[in-house]
């Protein structure tokens, strides 16, 4: 009996003490989608590092990929009376009611890494993000040049329904369809990860064999998986089959130095400094552009070795 009571007491104390309260001047809430990829972890790290540098009390919430958790997080940020909110929305729609609450509480909201659809644009201060359609177009343009306007392409899509997957497909297709000799012969989802990218590429290689001239992957991880599949089929990635992808993570640069990946289009996750600056500006009453676009560069394999040491993610 006694021991059980003690046990309960201990458990309650553990809960109570595992929680620490800080009180610092500026309190900012950051609602992150989750930790589903290295890219996103880099983004989270950037936010945390910037917060520490600026001495901001950052309230971080990981939504584990669920929109409802992000909405809950914003609601409790409002209840905690934060000074500003940074939101990395998991999807473009569904933020109007909760952002209206934030507006009523006079809390500025800054969006990072993708936009949202709302009827009232004053619901958020600004959007700091890359243009996914533009990235797809850049990848397409580079490939058109490299392939001399002809050849067969297979596409590894991101998670069906995810905004980057839809836009990167749209941008790429808009360029390719101008060239009648270039064809996307297969397109399947690799869910933005290596294992699925590899499995899908394996199936493509078996179905189409030597007909495939190029692979376009919606992110680097899938491309890296596809490269392994190509090697296991006894072909040389980068030579027999051209590989182009998006994001520009470290692994992609290493593959380019090895000559296995031909090109990657950058998509910068280090948005921390810009996001905090935007909130400070908004609190100071400054007017901001609605979309602070990131200048994403195209990195072909020829420049990989020179650029690699300066890459931060």
């Amino acid at each position: 009996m006694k021991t059980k009571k003690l046990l309960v007491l201990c458990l309650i104390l553990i809960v109570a003490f595992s929680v620490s309260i800080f009180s610092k001047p500026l309190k900012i809430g950051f609602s992150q989608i989750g930790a589903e990829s290295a890219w996103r972890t880099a983004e989270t790290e950037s936010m945390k590092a910037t917060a520490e540098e600026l001495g901001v009390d950052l309230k971080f919430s990981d939504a584990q990929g669920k929109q409802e958790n992000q909405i809950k997080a914003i609601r409790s940020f409002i209840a905690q009376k934060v000074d500003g909110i940074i939101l990395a929305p998991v999807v473009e729609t569904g933020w109007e009611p909760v952002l209206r609450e934030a507006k009523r509480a006079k809390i500025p909201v800054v969006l990072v890494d993708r936009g949202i659809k709302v009827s009232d644009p004053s619901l958020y201060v600004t959007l700091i993000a890359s243009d996914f359609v533009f990235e797809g177009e850049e990848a397409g343009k580079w490939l058109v040049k490299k392939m001399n306007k002809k050849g067969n392409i297979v596409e590894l899509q991101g998670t069906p329904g995810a905004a980057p997957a839809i836009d990167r497909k749209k941008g790429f297709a808009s360029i390719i369809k101008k060239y009648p000799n270039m064809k996307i012969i297969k397109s399947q989802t690799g869910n933005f990860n290596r294992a699925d990218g590899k499995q899908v590429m394996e199936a493509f290689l078996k179905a189409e064999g030597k007909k495939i001239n190029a692979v376009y992957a919606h992110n680097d991880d899938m491309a890296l998986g596809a490269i392994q599949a190509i090697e296991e089929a006894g072909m040389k990635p980068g030579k027999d089959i051209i590989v182009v992808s998006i994001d520009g993570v470290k692994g992609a640069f290493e593959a380019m130095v090895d000559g296995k990946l031909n090109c990657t289009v950058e998509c910068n996750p280090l948005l921390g400094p810009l996001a905090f600056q935007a909130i400070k500006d908004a609190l100071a009453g400054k007017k901001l552009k609605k979309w602070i676009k990131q200048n994403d560069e195209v990195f072909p394999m020829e420049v990989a070795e020179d650029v690699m040491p300066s890459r931060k993610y």
Partner: protein
Amino acid sequence: MAIKDLTRDLTKRIASSHIKWSLIIFFVILLFNFIFTPNFFHIEIKNGRFYGSIIDVFNRAAPVMLAAIGMTLVIATGGIDISVGSVMAISGSIAAVLIAKMDVPFWMVLCLPLVFSALLGAWNGLLVSYIGIQPIIATLILLVAGRGIAQLVTDGQIIVFEHPPFEFIAGGSLFGLHFPIIISFGVFLIILFLFKFTALGLFVESVGGNSEASKYCGINAGRIKLVVYIVSALCAGIAGLIAASNIKAADPNTSGDGLELNAILAVVIGGTSLNGGKYFLVGSVIGALIMQSLTTTILTMGVPVQVTLVVNAIVVLVVCLIQSKNFRDILAGIFKLDFRGLLRRMPLKGGNK
């Protein structure tokens, strides 16, 4: 003599109704590919091993197959283990960190992840059998927390490595077969031996069939449950090693995502009831093959991404209808087919009783 017994046993097992129907479904999918997908059965030898879509089916089915084998035993005791995906991620992550960040001998790279997986399994087993928490909630704890542990191990990064002996696990081959095929069938045979040809299997069945009654028979139900959860976690751990070796990296975020649903589906397609009791290890293996052949078919045929789920749905519903005796009887009534007579005339002994 023993082999003769084994084959007779196998024929009998195939004839027992559940496995028969899942086998038929598997062959229908293959037949479909034979007709509509050129090159599906084309096999050539590349890098000293077989290469072809049909080989891929067996190779890629390995993780689900392993998880399904462990899951079968857990389900047989009336439990369920939804933490397998997370255990898979943890095991892969530990192996990758040991290779990439620490200088440890190779046997430790293989053993430590598996030992840790077994410990996680023991944790599940303890919660279920000794604290008496409902299995789905007990393993839910590890499903959620385990993903966090895997991310903690790798610090949320994808850990890349180069290590030829470890890469052999997924990339190597034996007798021309991909090594994962060898591993999964090896594990299958070991488990089949342990749980079908020793008393252990009977214990499992009786715990799942009637926990109270088995207690009176002197079976320590708690210990049996502990064992099956450890086996399930071990299988998931091995799957984790294969997955990490396959992509030469550990991905703590997505590795094993949704594995629990696939494994349970494989088990149920294989004819094992979620209520516990009787279980069919062979059925689970075929269940895993059915699902992988479906995936490979969808990828090879080039089904549009947004339709994939609908195709999945139709196949799953057809599978569960065909396995339903009532449905077959109705179908037979409509087409005036004599299924039973047909089967009696088939060379398989036992038939449909």
